[in-house]
């Protein structure tokens, strides 16, 4: 009897030792893989920065984008925004006190735009994050797995691509009340991932055929490992380009939704400034036209930055486009 217990305990002990070893091995393996991934990532990140610096377009775009990021983070501290309304100060002309004048409710336009940067940027970044995350994930899965997985993901993205995007957003808005930027971003990204997934898939397909990946799989390196350490760094520039352009598209779409009054918004969001100025008849009041022009210029500037940056990156990484 006693011996039996001892036997069971020993077995359990052995099991735990084995489990421990397995976990240890797993952790070491994972740590190594992460380390290698980070090292690769860091290497390609540095090459990436070098590329941006050497390409004039990308550099100009990067500066504009960094400026906007800076405004989004620190803008509210530097230019505190006062949301007190006073109709006596309605549509004031630009002056030393109000750099861009005031809006229809007497608020300082310049401060509003700075304040709104954070809102606009957060929608754009959330959307880009979801889009790229989901798109890349789906692209990698379908490109790497192939076969039926590939076909099904292909069909799904085909369906999503052939649905008219804006009407669907409108329909969704009947059922879902968009209360925060997070939801808005999620909804916007639902329809922008398939295109990205498709191109990531084809990138992965062509990468898979390259020698070094073939060698990796012949040498018995694990799939996940290949994806993280070899494939991802290779499509990084591509992903960066798409991140920026989906930010750009997100701004276009979100402001459009505000124009239609589907999405709720902060009053300082650039789109909201335009919409409320238009609704209060700013067209007819010469002094109020700035309330439309200023946010449009802000949007334009950001979009130009995004276009320059992504085109520059494309040029730097795509040798076919490089000028001789």
């Amino acid at each position: 009897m006693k011996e039996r217990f001892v036997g069971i305990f020993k077995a359990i002990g052995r099991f735990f030792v084995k489990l421990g070893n397995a976990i240890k091995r797993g952790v070491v393996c994972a740590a190594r893989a992460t380390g290698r991934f980070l090292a690769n990532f860091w290497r390609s990140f540095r090459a990436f920065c070098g590329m941006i610096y050497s390409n004039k377009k990308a550099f100009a775009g990067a500066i504009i984008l960094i400026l906007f990021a800076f405004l989004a983070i620190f803008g509210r501290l530097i230019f505190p925004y006062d949301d007190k309304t006073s109709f006596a100060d309605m549509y004031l002309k630009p002056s030393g006190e109000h750099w861009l004048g005031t809006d229809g409710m007497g608020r300082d336009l310049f401060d509003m735009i700075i304040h709104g940067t954070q809102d606009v940027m957060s929608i754009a970044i959330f959307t880009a994050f979801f889009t790229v995350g989901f798109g890349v994930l789906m692209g990698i899965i379908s490109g790497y797995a192939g076969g039926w997985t590939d076909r099904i993901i292909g069909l799904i993205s085909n369906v999503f691509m052939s649905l008219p995007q804006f009407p669907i957003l409108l329909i969704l808005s009947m059922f879902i009340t968009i209360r925060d930027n997070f939801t808005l971003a999620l909804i916007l990204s639902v329809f922008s991932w398939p295109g990205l997934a498709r191109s990531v898939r084809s990138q992965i397909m062509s990468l898979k055929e390259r020698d070094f990946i073939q060698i990796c799989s012949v040498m018995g390196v694990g799939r996940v490992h290949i994806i993280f350490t070899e494939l991802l760094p290779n499509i990084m520039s591509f992903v960066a380009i798409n991140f920026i352009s989906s930010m750009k598209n997100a701004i276009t779409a979100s402001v459009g939704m505000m124009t239609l009054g589907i999405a709720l918004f902060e009053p300082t969001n650039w789109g909201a400034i335009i919409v409320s100025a238009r609704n209060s008849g700013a067209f007819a009041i010469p002094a109020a036209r700035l309330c439309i022009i200023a946010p449009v210029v802000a949007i334009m500037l950001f979009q130009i930055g995004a276009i320059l940056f992504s085109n520059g990156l494309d040029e730097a990484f795509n040798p076919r486009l490089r000028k001789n």
Partner: protein
Amino acid sequence: MSEFWSKTRRFFYKTKYFWVKLLVTLLTMLIVAVLSFVLIKSLPGDVVHQYALNLQNTLKVPYEEAYATAVRMLNYDPEQNIFSAFMTYLGGLFRGNLGQSIYLEDVTANSIIADYLPWTLLVSSVSLLLSFVIGTMMGVRMARKRNGATDTVCTGVITVTGAVPDYLLGVILLMVFGSVLGIFPTYGAYDLATVGHPWEYFVSILHHAALPIITYTIAQVGGWALMAKGSAVAVLGDDYVNAAVLRGLPPRLIERRYLKRNAMLPLVTSLVISLAYLFGGSAVMESVFAYPGIGRAFTTYIGKRDYFVVQGLFLFLSFFIILANLVADFLCGLLDPRVRER
């Protein structure tokens, strides 16, 4: 007999590309119909009941008859199980009934399409044609003289126009030409006063459509130019163009048969697909210009929560895009022998 079968089989095998595409298209359409049905299914069940009660009052018929009419008009019977309800729904679609307004008796999705689509088509087809022609000409010229002054200027202009979302461009143009300068009207598709005078009516329509057309054209021209440029640059770099030159073919033939044909190929697909998107109109654009197009109608009925009309319009737009994709694929297969055999 066996020869007939083998011939048929060979025929199907040879045209495999088309059949696969057709199948995928039908499948996609079915999925969209299911989505649309789910939209209705998720409505509170008494919509049909309410509608039947309305009918009972207006038509003075017994409830059962009113209910049957309601089901026929709305394509939906909440009391059936899910499968037969879907069949009812599909049956209604095949009859050409896209959806009945639950608030207004004489308004259906079909009547809305008939009323609003022509305006959308007028504006968007003209602007698509303009932007395509101007854009491709620009693009090919840019590709020809790369790094020249034209290229630099065009790229700059395209970057700026591409940076402004189309409807904001519309807002700016509307403000400048509509409100400040007063050259163009700021809302509507025609002047009510001109109805009955054909010539004035026609001019009024053009006058109202001008600003939306200009906006659309400016907004789209850059995209076409870039696409045409990319395609033409790729073809110009291809060996077969140079080889054709060295083979002593006439330059004009090379231009036509080697350069343009090969460079236009990817653009044809995009053209067909954007033609389909045109049917949807742009809800935002049309609301900026207060133009009575289909996109605006869509927004309006969404605002009214008129579910059956909304799903009908949605279905119509989606089917158009799906079919256009099919047409684009077929065209691509007809024009490019490489695609056919994939």
